């Protein structure tokens, strides 16, 4: 308060600094401390504290280890208000508020309300086509369409077609990798055509997946699906690539066996 009286500029700077501290603590999973920093800021500088701080306070509170039901309700109301006041072109806070309400219904409520969650994801997604958080919301919606017990009781084909409907709307590279991971798994679970799955696998492979376990899995799937749809030489190439990159993986022996089988039934040369 004293800071505000002395210098408004300094007060704004101090507010921004404590907001940054709150987010840093949140990033470090120190939710109780983060909530305290955001709450202090809202009390000390109510005229300066902005929508960011309100969002931070609500999110930290919702993860507070000693969350009380009245605080939970107040935090959800705050998210709702931040969403309602998002404006025609939502700011970042507006997007996060909508997305977080979707996540709440999926991950906080027990039992989860997947339909409500999906509704929030769709609202957030439709608020801004290309925005990163709109794409993130779409990604989460794909997960629900593929796996969750939604009230519409979708059949396997509907689940996959709803997921495919998001295909052109998730363009960020990082999110696209995640989208393809979900889509490929869902397509295999719901027994989609193997050629279609293989096309998606080739797309994700072209994106150069960073994580080694996901990469190993993808190579293994590429080899197996290629063989299943009759592309023997391609399967051999993927399996060989696997053995080069993952010589001591839990899958290595099986890949070696499959490769030997393929080589013995084709003119593919030495395994």
């Amino acid at each position: 308060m004293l800071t505000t009286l002395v210098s408004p500029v300094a007060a704004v700077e101090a507010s921004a600094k404590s907001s940054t501290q709150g987010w840093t603590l949140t990033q470090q999973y120190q939710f109780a401390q983060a909530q305290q920093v955001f709450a202090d800021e809202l009390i000390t500088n109510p005229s300066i504290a902005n929508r960011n701080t309100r969002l931070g306070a609500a999110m930290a509170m919702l993860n507070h280890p000693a969350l009380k039901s009245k605080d939970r309700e107040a935090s959800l109301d705050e998210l709702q208000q931040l969403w309602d006041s998002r404006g025609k072109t939502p700011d970042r806070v507006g997007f996060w508020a909508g997305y977080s309400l979707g996540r709440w219904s999926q991950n906080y409520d027990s039992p989860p309300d997947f339909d409500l969650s999906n509704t929030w994801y769709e609202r957030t997604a439709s608020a801004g086509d290309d925005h990163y958080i709109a794409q993130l919301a779409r990604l989460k919606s794909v997960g629900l369409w593929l796996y969750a017990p939604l009230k519409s009781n979708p059949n396997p084909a509907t689940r996959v077609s709803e997921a495919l409907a998001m295909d052109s709307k998730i363009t960020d590279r990082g999110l696209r990798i995640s989208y393809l991971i979900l889509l490929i798994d869902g397509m295999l679970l719901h027994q989609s055509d193997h050629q279609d799955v293989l096309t998606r696998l080739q797309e994700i492979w072209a994106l150069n997946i960073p994580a080694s376990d996901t990469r190993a899995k993808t190579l293994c799937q590429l080899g197996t699906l290629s063989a299943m749809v009759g592309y023997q030489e391609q399967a051999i190439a993927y399996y060989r690539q696997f053995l080069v990159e993952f010589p001591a993986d839990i899958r290595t022996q099986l890949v070696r066996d499959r490769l030997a089988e393929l080589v013995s039934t084709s003119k593919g040369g030495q395994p």
Partner: protein
Amino acid sequence: MKWIQLIILTAIFGLCAFIVISRQSETSDSKIVLRVSHLFREPAAEAAMEAIGKEYSQLHPRVTVKFLKVPPSIFLQWFRIQLVSDAPPDIVQYQLWHRDLRQMVAQGFEPINELVEQPNPYNRGTSLEGIPLRETYIDGLQGEEAFFPEMGAYFGLPYRGVTLRVVYNRDLMAKIRGDPDWTPENWREFIALCEQTVAYAQENNLKLFPIAADKFGIYLMGNEASIGVSQKLALRTNYDYDFTLRTANLYPSLRFLRGEWSLRSPEVLAGLDIYREVARYMQPGFLQFDVSDVNFQFLQGHALMTIAGGPSFSDQANFSLGAFRIPGLKPDDQEYGDYVLGPYSEATHATTYAFGIPRDTEQKEIARDFLQFLTSQQTNQKFTQSSGEVPVIRDVQATPLASKFLPHLDGYIYGILPRGLGNTSTRQLFSENLYRLFQGEDGVEKFVTELEEKNIMKVTARDIRTLAQNYQRNLRETDAAFMAKIYQSEHPTELLDAHILSQTVFELDFLRIVYSLDQADKLESSLSRTP
């Protein structure tokens, strides 16, 4: 009644006192005290750890390493308290014997991906110089206590090799087989050895059994023996063709909930038969024994063999010990061969006792440096030689007995084990009824029928529902952290991509749980409608 209250009160007091003592800060102005908790019970291993601490202090005179030995009996409670404490030890050694522990590590420990992908500076001048720390491990850090595939994150550096082996009395082996170093090549030879031991005992009127084991021992041995028989089942139900049972207990449980296998699957029934076959050669009443009874019987020469996860009790025997891997089933086995792929790879279960860094500790940099020192080739060599433990780092010379415990990395995937279903409640149901399996001629049928009547599907679903709540808790925390990360960066960066990818991989498991539980509900309601 008062005695019980007094015992409980004393136990609580003891735990509290232990926690208070373990938290004492002993820092002085110039000194840094690095607090490291460990689980080693064996005096030799404990002394080896102390020596490592002293050596580190000689290299870094400002740092004193204080070790805290945590008794396994209180570990779970102690661990819970440390993770919410303001001042946990800087490094904690853990073992994931309880599923809650896995979740607790995921939530309360620092990911160490960066550390494991860098070369270990303490390996300069050795054969491992310049190699990423992950690759300096014998198992490539694939073990489930080090790497959490569902999060794409490394949390711990294991320090104990832990492959299961049959440990045997070489003197008795010489008398029974004529050669102290004879070991069976396959399952049938192993069973023949058991038969020969029974015959030898009868001929010489000895109180001698082929295998000394307790209740836990039958699980270990039964699992090891039957793990191959459901390998093809595991592969057949692998809908995503990734050739693994990643998250070894969860995936079989989800496949069970989706109705892809049952206790009446031929492979599972064959596995239960193998349990019975092994049990015939254990000392009578083994279900009532505990590990100390078993060690006593083996060390007294009343059993040819026992099962062990390491050579730790070798100094207690007054006879020489040999060890061999439980010979698995092979595809050429006449009875079970059709279900079998071959010996399984021990890569994901070769190490344990991982050292990790709690998220709330304040001395992360020094903790990281100490972990690098601890896992260097030279330090692991010294530890291995002084303790007799199995090395975890490549190119470290094992003692002759420990070398028998080095993991076999080549091999196939695990099969599906019924005891891996669900979590606590399912396992309790399994354990409570296990005795039925070993009774009479139709033990398998009685055991399976009882578990079906107790609705093992419902019990498994209940366990998995609880697990789903843990996933939800983890997801909401990572959501908040992810949001904060985005808030502090202008544009999504590679770091954010890595975060979203690991969350997706983790969330995929949650979504599979959700889907499988729904399938189980549908399966159950369709069965209840069937007249």
